């Protein structure tokens, strides 16, 4: 489905998603028209899903980031749906992932400080339905976060 030219364009585009169409074409050594056509096709077939700005929550005063690893009560048939539905309503939940493994779900939660986190944890997180167990991991530092695919 994708050829070497597509991959080359994506490689450069991944490393700098803010490139203009002309600069991207230049780096990938294709004409601007080819580059535009290829990007359009990859957007149409869903290879490229989007290009979005990454917000630094620290800069907005959110000093605390916690990963909550949740195990759900599997005797409840709709536990997963009901839990995620409610978790989505909490604005400080910035990521919801589901897993096959020891952990069922993971929530990324941000808070202004530990006091704010404690308040969120008590009033919003612990009231979510069907929780069997929660483990918290606190973020210290992000060493690599580009999420680049090795194309």
């Amino acid at each position, binding site marked *: *489905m*994708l050829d070497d030219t597509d991959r080359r364009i*994506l490689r450069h*585009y*991944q490393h700098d*998603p*803010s490139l203009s169409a002309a600069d991207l074409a230049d780096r990938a050594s294709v004409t601007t028209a080819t580059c535009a056509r290829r990007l359009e096709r990859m957007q149409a*077939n*869903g*290879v*490229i*899903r*989007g*290009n*979005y*700005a*990454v*917000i*630094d*929550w620290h*800069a*907005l*005063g*959110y000093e605390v980031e916690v*990963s909550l690893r949740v195990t759900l009560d599997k005797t409840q048939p709709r536990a997963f749906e009901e839990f*995620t539905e409610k978790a*989505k309503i909490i*604005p*400080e*939940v*910035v*990521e*919801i*992932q*589901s*897993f*096959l*493994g*020891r*952990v069922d779900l*993971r929530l990324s939660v*941000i808070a202004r400080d530990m006091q704010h986190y404690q308040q969120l944890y008590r009033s919003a997180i612990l009231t979510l339905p069907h929780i069997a167990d929660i*483990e*918290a*991991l*606190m*973020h*210290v*530092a*992000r*060493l*690599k*976060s*580009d*999420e*680049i*695919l*090795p*194309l």
Partner: protein
Amino acid sequence: MIDLDTTDRQLLRELSRDATQSASALGRKLGLSQPATWRRVKRLRDAGVIRGQRLDLDAEKLGFGVTVFLGIKLATKGRVSLDDFERAVSAIPEVQTVEHILGLYDYRLRVVARDISDFERILRRRLMMLPGVGDIEANVLLSEERRPGPIG
């Protein structure tokens, strides 16, 4: 820390959905002039509120069928330098993110692989060879959803 007004928040919301929108297109949506929009976006970038831009690719369509999150505990703390471990793990191309955490594990990694046997190869040949690695826990990602966060 920078103060945001309602317009800034709307701009952030728009850009975290689609960062390729031009200042004039954004301005039209929010009822701002193109220069005013540009100035606000520049201020958000300069203040570091916008950390960067990310291309969202469908990993599966590009042949990466498996994403695994690993929790890694270092076995020999104190003897192995964290710097060495961090440098080595960040250099592995299949490792997409590396986070230093506090709790059950020391590091959390996001790893992409073509399939489970490719993942096994990365795990055995690359990750288990890292200096100081102790316990590893793996969870295969089934689904994920990024939320806009508290910028309503």
